[in-house]
């Protein structure tokens, strides 16, 4: 029974890697391998690389000071935080809102088996995010210290314990959200607010942790023994990675105990939460005259309605709408100091600071990606826009527009703040303003284009198109990669024609790309959409 359910869950999670929904047939082996390799490269290369670098800087000083346990405690804490950050948002939806919950619950399947299969998805998500921190940490540690079987075993146990601990915390938070959601009308917004509070906490902890780590390394001789003495739990947790048998036994028992308690709690409430309709109070209808809108306006409103109805969609694809004004404010407050710091490092390369600010703006411009899953999110409703007397391009345009409407005001504000702080010459100011706008337009168009080409309309959990789809991954990471390339190429080559011309070149490239995508969407996109 469990095996069958796990097989189904695996098939759902990894479907896009093995199955081409567009061609309605399994991918070739080469295609599947290429997909998986690309994903692993993106995760391991970008996130793993960042945390690997951090591990390198921490490992030697801490191990040499005899505080290898502190190294694992620190990296483990970051892994828990990142793992939780990556999986917590999917727990509530994956566990309680899966579309096949009713079907499975109607079958003679024990609730525990359904829960186990559902938790597998949450576990994999948590494992993936925690692994990009802890696996590089383990590798760096094993390279740094002389090899021992106990250390290797300890490292493996630590990876396992962390992933189970992350799963436990995710499930508890998902349970809290589910309990609150049952009683609330505006569930999406409440979930978004809870998630935003969590994100704020994450970043608060992250920045605090950075300062703390610096402080710890500088005074390891003082802090190390003090923590070991007063916070025995942290020591035992960290010592698991070093292969400490007592640490392994105690931490394994502790993690197993809290996981057991969480399992019991979930088991007791799963049925009532998964089957709760949530329609506690009926919305009273009062007839009122509605204004007549154009078809395009109706479609745009529909897209915004879709977005605001889903906490997952808002959190995963539209968070930058809030972050951009925050970035603008940060630029105003911290900008002068950042300019000074960057100038002292890259002052030798003319216009480097302008290019780096342009890079930051471009990165921010691509962080909203509502367009990338928007076609797939039509799901079983695809027949509605297909059967309406509207040009398919208007349907697709509304998806692009949502992303631009959410992104451009904040981005413009950030650009203005950037110009106020940087005060570049007009020749640099204009491309500095134009380039991020071109980025935003290009990635909104790219999102819809990719989702048209790789649409997944047969999802049972909306997280599949929102979080685990090829278009979303490419748009998000592609945006960052391209923005990083903008800075990297300039700093490496220091082109003699200067920053303004360089930025114009990039802007022209983005504009040309946008035009090509726009023309494709207008000419061919409609046909592709109608054939989905």
């Amino acid at each position, binding site marked *: 029974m469990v095996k069958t359910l796990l097989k189904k869950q695996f098939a759902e999670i990894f479907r896009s890697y093995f199955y081409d929904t567009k061609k309605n047939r399994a991918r070739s082996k080469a295609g599947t391998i290429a997909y998986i390799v690309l994903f692993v490269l993106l995760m391991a290369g970008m996130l793993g690389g960042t945390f690997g670098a951090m591990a390198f800087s921490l490992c030697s000083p801490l191990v040499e000071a005899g505080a290898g346990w502190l190294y694992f405690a620190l990296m483990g804490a970051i892994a828990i935080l990142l793992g939780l950050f990556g999986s917590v948002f999917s727990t509530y939806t994956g566990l309680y809102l899966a579309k096949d919950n009713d079907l499975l619950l109607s079958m003679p399947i024990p609730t525990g088996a359904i829960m186990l299969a559902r938790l597998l998805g949450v576990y994999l998500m948590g494992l993936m995010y925690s692994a990009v921190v802890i696996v590089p940490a383990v590798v760096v540690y094993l390279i740094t210290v002389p090899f021992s079987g106990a250390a290797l075993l300890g490292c493996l146990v630590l990876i396992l314990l962390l992933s189970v601990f992350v799963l436990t915390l995710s499930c508890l938070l998902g349970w809290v959200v589910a309990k609150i959601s049952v009683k609330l009308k505006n569930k999406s917004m409440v979930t978004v607010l809870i998630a935003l509070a969590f994100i704020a906490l994450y970043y608060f902890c992250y920045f605090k942790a950075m300062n703390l780590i610096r402080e710890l390394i500088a005074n390891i001789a003082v802090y190390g023994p003090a923590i070991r003495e007063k916070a025995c739990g942290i020591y035992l947790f960290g010592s698991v990675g070093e292969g400490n048998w007592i640490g392994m036994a105690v931490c394994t028992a502790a993690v197993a105990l809290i996981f057991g308690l969480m399992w019991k709690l979930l088991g007791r409430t799963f049925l009532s939460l998964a089957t709760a309709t949530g329609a506690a109070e009926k919305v009273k209808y009062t007839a009122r005259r*509605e204004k007549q809108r154009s078809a395009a306006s109706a479609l745009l409103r529909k897209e915004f309605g879709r977005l605001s109805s889903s906490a997952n969609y808002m959190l995963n694809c539209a968070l930058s709408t809030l972050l951009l004004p925050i970035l603008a404010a940060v630029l105003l407050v911290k900008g002068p100091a950042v300019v000074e710091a960057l100038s002292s490092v890259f002052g030798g390369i003319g216009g480097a600071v302008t290019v780096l600010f342009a890079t930051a703006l471009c990165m921010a411009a691509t962080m909203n990606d509502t367009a990338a899953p928007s076609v797939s999110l039509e799901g079983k409703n695809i027949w509605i826009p297909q059967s309406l007397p509207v040009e398919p391009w208007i349907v697709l345009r509304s998806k692009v527009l949502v992303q631009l409407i959410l992104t451009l005001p904040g981005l413009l504000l950030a650009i203005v703040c950037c110009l106020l702080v940087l005060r570049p010459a007009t020749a640099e100011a204009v491309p500095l303003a134009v380039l991020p706008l071109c980025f935003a337009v290009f990635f909104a168009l790219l999102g819809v284009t990719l989702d048209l080409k790789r649409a997944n309309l047969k999802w049972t959990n909306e997280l599949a198109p929102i979080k685990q789809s090829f278009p979303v991954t490419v748009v998000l990471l592609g945006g960052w990669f391209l923005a990083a390339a903008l800075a990297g190429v300039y700093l490496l080559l220091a082109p003699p024609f200067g920053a303004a011309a360089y930025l114009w070149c990039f802007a022209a490239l983005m504009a040309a790309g946008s035009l090509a995508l726009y023309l494709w969407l207008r000419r061919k996109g409609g046909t592709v959409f109608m054939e989905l």
Partner: protein
Amino acid sequence: MLRIEHLTKTFGEKLAVDDLSLHIAPGEIYGFIGHNGAGKTTTLRSAVGIQSFDAGEIFICGTSIKTDPLACKRQIAYIPDNPDLYEFMSGVKYLNFIADVFGVPAELRAARIADYAARFELTDDLGQPISAYSHGMKQKLAIISAWLHDPKLILMDEPFVGLDPKAAFLLKGMMRELCDRGGAIFFSTHVLEVAEKLCDKVAIIKQGRLIRSGTMEEVKGDDSLEEVFLELEAD
């Protein structure tokens, strides 16, 4: 009103619809029957322009669905076999969305929504999100949305599934009403008694091929439609 000429559609190697021709005139309720997988839904989806086809032509009020799909879609309404509507919208928001897209003026739509919702006893639920609707309520909402812009031709795939007896009776009345005003209905059904009593004409499809069509008398003669259908299926 609807002219299907030599429609052919294949899915991979499977021939779903094979050289099917049908003519539906104004004022006609045309029933479309056949076993599961016979090609009914494919034909209906092709006729409303959401399924491409390999050969043949489909004309709605003389306009080809291939060359001018938008003009065709303005004249028609479609109800699929499963009323998958936008669950994030409330009932009334969905109806207003459809009315906006079809350009139904504000006053007219308000009157129609009030009228049809009252007929189907859905008025009190219009403020509810569609996600809270039962299958039957979604079907009623899909029917109201189809009638909202007063189309000339309505194509429906199993429209009576999920409807309570009163709503099914109402729907039959509305279908007749529309045809009496010069409109036409083309719908698929497995309920042969309904088809026999309601339809002016009927077409029987088997493995993608039209095996019999015409007026009810022409198709069934002195037998019941059920007997004729089972006999044809057995051949």
